[in-house]
């Protein structure tokens, strides 16, 4: 089995390096095909491992020593257990799909080879992240995906906005990474190891406040990667990257790493339910908060990004409330339909010559039938309509909140579910229904390459069946490792009222969205100039606030530190001391005026001064001696 583990892990790396070989060469499909093929290999290996794990085994290997200093010992160790194999499957499936899709999507891009190199490198990092058997190994993947995210967001580096967004993403993640490092430090100094098994076995022996702090710091780390408030702004900006990237990284995999971390560290969080409540509350808040921003946005990809953010909130609610397997389940389901949604958006963008404003589109279902179907499917799944994936995973979270008696959270999530349905179908309606507004802009859309659609097909299937088909086997498998909590509303009436009510609520939201946007778009000036609309449209002014409160002052402070402190105080002091010495020389060396008289005078003055000192000293000396006598 270890062989499969290594294949699953390193096949993407090989793909990346292979593509990198052609980095500077002109575009060749070979790179794309090879990378995709290797990923497929990785997927197959993962599947084999999944099979193995399903049989109740786990694989744990230690490849080699990485860091050993003092008592610290960190190997490159990898573990395939119920949790990581789930993640591996998600990652390898989505990334294989995205790779194949990208061959078409990036076909006309100069940086084709480079793109596959980055993309495969990302998959490798992600694999390291999920498969590592210790916290620092996870951190390698953690930073690795950050790097690839930076590379891929800024893939079109000639665009100012893209590079800016790339840097923003990287730096924001770094802020969170610091907290994560601190969490790791705390683990090490308190437990003497960073291996999962050692840590989780001994964590309960620590005092409560230390566990709490560890939990908090690790969660802050997770917040960065999963773009939780207040570190969320980078995710929307990250949409500057190519759309497959958004599908893979910023929807399906990387952003869920935070959730994965919390799930993985469940023995820690299990001990500190208060922190769990905070996580859940923050998750719920983000779910609503992000959904609200998605309501009015006029950028297709940003809408989906906010939706992702919102769904991440759901996952954190589940994780925070101790329903780790639910969180992981939603993570998986979400990965499928959200990636699908993004890839569909990619098709639309291609057809629309990179136009992103859905208000400039419309009626695309004629020319892009399959895309329409797939995106609608994904949206339905996202909205959580029975029997698609979202229903099983998302509604489960609502139930968790309800069962755990967190009715506020439940209400918020319910409301968000409605909002989700609304904005999802607002988007679908705007793009695929109504007038063909894009004709005004002289754009003639066309469907994407067939193989791209075929590539998307598995995701479509998964979006439909993932919930229905996988829930039970998944539950059985993963609860070997995660707390096996079941969330059943024992009162059947309540259960049915809740389920049907939710479904009706969601359907109502969908209908409203269709009604409002499917025919003609009426721009309501009054609403748009309203405070609420402006607030939402400008993302609660948070990017602006960050800019004003952090970025600009930091730059100003930096300039101040350089020009005023460094040059005018620190350096000037040094030069000042030197100058004082030099100037003293300049001023006083005129005492040597070359005139013999003054030279003689200096000598006599010296003598007289010494004489005076001698007399004074003698007088003082005698006085003291007299007193002594």
């Amino acid at each position, binding site marked *: 089995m270890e062989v499969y583990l290594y294949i699953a892990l390193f096949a993407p790396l090989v793909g990346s390096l292979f593509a990198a070989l052609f*980095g*500077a060469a002109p575009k060749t499909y070979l790179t794309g095909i090879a990378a995709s093929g290797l990923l497929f290999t990785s997927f197959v290996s993962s599947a084999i491992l999944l099979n193995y794990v399903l049989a109740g085994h786990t694989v744990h290997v230690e490849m*080699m*020593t*990485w*860091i*050993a*200093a*003092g*008592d*610290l010992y960190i190997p490159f160790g990898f573990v395939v257990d119920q949790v990581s194999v789930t993640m591996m499957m998600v990652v390898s499936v989505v990334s294989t799909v995205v790779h194949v899709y990208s061959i078409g999507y990036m076909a006309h891009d100069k940086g084709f080879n480079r793109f596959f190199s980055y993309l495969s490198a990302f998959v490798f990092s992600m694999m390291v992240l999920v498969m590592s058997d210790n916290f*620092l190994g996870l*951190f*390698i993947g*953690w*930073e*690795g995906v950050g*790097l690839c995210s*930076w590379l891929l967001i*800024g893939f079109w*580096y*000639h665009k*100012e906005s893209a*590079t*800016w967004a*790339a*840097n923003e993403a*990287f*730096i924001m993640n*770094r*802020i969170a*990474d*610091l907290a994560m*490092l*601190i969490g*790791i*430090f*705390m683990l*090490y*100094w308190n437990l003497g190891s960073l291996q999962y098994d050692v840590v989780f076995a001994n964590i309960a022996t620590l005092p409560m406040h230390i566990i709490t702090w560890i939990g908090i710091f690790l969660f802050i780390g997770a917040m960065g990667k999963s773009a939780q408030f207040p570190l969320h702004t980078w995710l929307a900006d990250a949409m500057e990257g190519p759309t497959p990237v958004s599908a893979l990284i910023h929807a399906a995999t990387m952003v869920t790493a935070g959730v994965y971390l919390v799930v993985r560290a469940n023995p820690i969080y299990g001990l500190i339910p208060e922190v769990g409540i905070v996580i859940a509350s923050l998750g719920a808040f983000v779910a609503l908060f992000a959904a609200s921003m998605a309501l009015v946005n006029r950028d297709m990809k940003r809408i989906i990004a906010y939706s992702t953010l919102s769904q991440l909130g759901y996952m954190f609610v589940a994780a925070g409330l101790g329903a780790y397997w639910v969180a992981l389940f939603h993570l998986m389901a979400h990965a499928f339909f959200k990636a699908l949604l993004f890839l569909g958006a990619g098709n639309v963008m291609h057809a629309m010559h990179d136009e992103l404003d859905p208000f400039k589109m419309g009626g695309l279902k004629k020319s892009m039938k399959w895309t329409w179907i797939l995106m609608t499917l994904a949206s339905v799944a996202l909205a959580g309509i029975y029997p698609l994936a979202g229903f099983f995973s998302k509604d489960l979270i609502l139930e968790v909140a309800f069962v755990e008696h967190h009715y506020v959270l439940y209400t918020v999530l319910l409301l968000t579910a409605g909002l989700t349905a609304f904005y999802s179908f607002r988007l679908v309606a705007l793009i695929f229904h109504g007038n063909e507004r894009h004709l005004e802009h002289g754009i003639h859309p066309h469907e994407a390459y067939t193989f791209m659609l075929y590539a998307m097909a598995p995701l479509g299937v998964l979006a439909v069946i993932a919930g229905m088909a996988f829930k039970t086997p998944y539950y059985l498998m993963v609860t070997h490792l995660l707390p096996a909590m079941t969330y059943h509303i024992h009162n059947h009436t309540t259960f049915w009222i809740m389920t049907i009510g939710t479904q009706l609520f969601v359907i109502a939201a969908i209908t409203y969205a269709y009604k409002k946007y499917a025919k003609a778009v009426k721009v309501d000036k009054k609403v748009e100039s309203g405070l609420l609309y402006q607030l939402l449209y400008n993302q609660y002014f948070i990017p602006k606030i960050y800019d004003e409160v952090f970025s600009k002052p*930091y*730059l100003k*402070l*930096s*300039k101040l*530190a*350089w*020009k005023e*402190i*460094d040059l005018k105080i*620190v*350096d000037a*002091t*040094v030069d000042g001391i*030197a100058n004082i010495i030099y100037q003293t020389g300049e001023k006083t060396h005129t005492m040597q005026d070359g005139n013999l008289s003054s030279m003689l005078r200096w000598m006599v003055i010296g003598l007289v001064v010494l004489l005076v000192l001698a007399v004074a000293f003698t007088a003082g000396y005698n006085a003291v001696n007299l007193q002594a006598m």
Partner: protein
Amino acid sequence: MQEHILSILIFFPALAAMFGFVVHKDSVRAYGITVAAIEFFLSLWLWNLYDPMTSGMQFMEMAPLVSAFGISYLVGVDGISLFIIILSTFFTLIGIASLTEKRRVKDLIITLLFLEMTMIGVFAALDAIVFYVFWELSLIPMLYIIGAWGGPLRIYASIKFFLYTFTGSLVMLVGMLFMAYFYYQATGQWSFSLLEWYRLILPVNIQMWLFAAFFLGFAIKVPMFPFHTWLPYAHGQAPTIGSVILAAILLKMGTYAFIRFSLPLFPDASVAFMFPIAIIAIIMIVYAAMVAYAQEDIKQVVAYSSISHMGVIILGIFSMNVEGITGSVFLMIAHGVVSGALFLLVGVIYDRRHTKLMSEFGGLASVMPRYATIFGIMMMASVGLPLTINFVGEFLSLLGFYKQSHSYTLVAGTAIIVGAIYMLSAYKKAFFGTVTNEKNKNLKDVNRTELLGLVPLVVVAIWLGVYPKPLLEPINNSVEAIVQLMHDKAQTLEAKQRIPDLSNSAGLNSTQEAH
């Protein structure tokens, strides 16, 4: 020959430099590369001969020099100095091999070879005066390199570099003499041998003063805030090769000396000064990073980034535990590789455009993709991405200091944030965007000579990031000896508590007494 390998390593370049006067100026570059390569392989051989399981000094050589005053030629290596020596030979080789300077190459190469001697001498010396001799002597070649091949402000920069460092080290010299005097009082004999000094247990108040005296010398060299202002000038004006050596090796002398002198000689004072120094280190980290962010000249960005990274090294050293000190030694090497490479990279673009202002560039990624890639890798290494060389050192240094103080480490840890800010924004300014400047349209990508220097560095930066064990193990063993020594010598209760006692732990199996 094995027992004299250190002396050979030290004096071979100097001898070769003398011979170099005879070599014709057209062939001198080949000569320089040959000598540097031989020296590099000698240093590798040293590594090969080195027993990584032993913590004490190896290949010791001793010859009395001024026996009446206790000065002797005493050299040796342990895990701490071994790799810095190899780094020195490595960078001299890389530096000469990728030399693009056209003016008076012969003088430059001879100077570099002399410089190599002094660098190795500093790291191999175990006698305070011999150490001091090489320490001071290293200033002169550097002075010449900056002053003769530098930019428009080169004379100001070189003199500032020299005088500043010289002033600090003179105070340190007084400290050394005092130390020797103290030894004389204790034993009735003069000695400047470090190993002898290690045996002394000094009264705490004397430790404080001596620590301060040594500190000044080392701090200026490192350079620590607020003694750092010579560095931007030196880097800004120095030719590429000068900056490379300065950043890669010369700065390490200060931090190395902290480990070699300050910690084992003055354990109590080190503990007492730990937090003030940590504050300075934090200032270095954050403040230098901010200043770097404000720079307009890309070389200055790298220069200030050095200060910032040196802050982390200092923090690691004063963590007083094996993890931190091992990390800081490793980070010295890592920072040497990375900053050296970055300066080489800046040199590449400077050779083409004769400017280092970022506003002059933009969009280089499309004109010089290979260059941008290598720069990117090195930048990421500098930022401390895992699996690159810097991460191991930074992680261990911060991890080490976390044991001493949580809040300080939290603040110091912002290094990974602020570091990313200035590096990424500089990279963005220079490499991203569209090519707006006409002059940049037809720039040539890195050529073979330049790759000759850069590729090995990239390889090392990643190799040691993935597999740092060959270095970490010997470093760790030697650091354990030092930490144990410090613990044994510590007198104050605080010091006893802060410095871990390794004698009970399993880690000491391979450790012997340092003397």
